[in-house]
């Protein structure tokens, strides 16, 4: 099976389901950011915890995606490609372990666009995820970034 044939199925079969799942995954930070602004006294602190843990899990997940793509490289994974998958995982640990919400938000706000940018580069090189994945991932990252920035702004006020 050549590459053209092999790419047909993902392009036709996956995007709709992937898009639905991806946008569903964006809902928790969006709702959390709204709660932080609308109900700060009752729910603010608890919702911030949920949002930060969710952000950390997302970064670890995106690292895993890169690892999965690296494993499937023709000829096997390279050390560099595997390391590229592990860096987001390592970045996510302080989000779970630190007490300081300011630093935890900052890591998420820096890591999410950085990972998207690097994934876009990998796709352009032909060694990353397919175009349609980033077509979903880019607006999703923007949505999540707006949510995290909104919650971060509340923290600073």
């Amino acid at each position, binding site marked *: 099976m050549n590459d053209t044939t092999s790419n047909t199925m993902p392009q036709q079969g996956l995007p709709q389901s992937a898009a639905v799942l991806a946008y569903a995954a964006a809902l928790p930070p969006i709702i959390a950011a709204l709660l932080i602004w609308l109900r700060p006294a009752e729910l603010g*602190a608890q919702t911030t915890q*949920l949002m930060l843990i969710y952000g*950390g*899990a997302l970064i670890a997940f995106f690292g*895993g995606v890169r690892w999965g*793509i690296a*494993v499937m490289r023709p000829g096997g994974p390279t050390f560099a490609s595997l390391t590229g998958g592990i860096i987001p995982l390592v970045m996510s640990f302080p989000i779970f372990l630190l007490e300081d919400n300011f630093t935890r938000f900052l890591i998420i706000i820096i890591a999410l666009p950085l990972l998207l940018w690097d994934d876009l580069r990998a796709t352009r090189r032909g060694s990353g995820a*397919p175009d349609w994945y980033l077509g979903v991932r880019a607006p999703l990252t923007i949505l999540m970034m707006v949510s995290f920035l909104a919650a971060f702004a509340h923290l600073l006020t």
Partner: protein
Amino acid sequence: MTALGAAGLLPFVFSAGAMWFTPSAVALEVAQSVVIFVSVYGAVIAAYLAGANAGARLAPHREQAGWFTPGQLLLLIAFFAALPIKAIFSIPLVAELRLAIIAFVLIMLCVLDLRAIRKNTLPQWYGTLRLGLTMIASTCLLLVSLRIILWGSP
């Protein structure tokens, strides 16, 4: 790859060791932090492996696409199991049950990968590695859980 995988196991192994050497060699206060650490670490690894499962299905040059919802559902289970009590929507579970749930999620993620290998979606060598790492990680989580049960409380 094996070295990186083995490095990822170290926190599980050290945590299980620390728990079983408490209180003879490790202070009880340290053991309490270890329980929190290993449950968070287990959930992060679950998120990572769910991502790896999805990534393998997204990779270029592959012949068969798949549905990656099961991995994401498992990730959600691990996420709620590790969610601290002070967070909204956290589930009031005892630590030993949280750890058992995360161990279960790791095993199920491995099963998903092994199924993908049987369908030639993932390479054979990856399955051997995943199986070994999952067995050790989940055993360590269950050992921590067992130690808490034997104590009566964390």
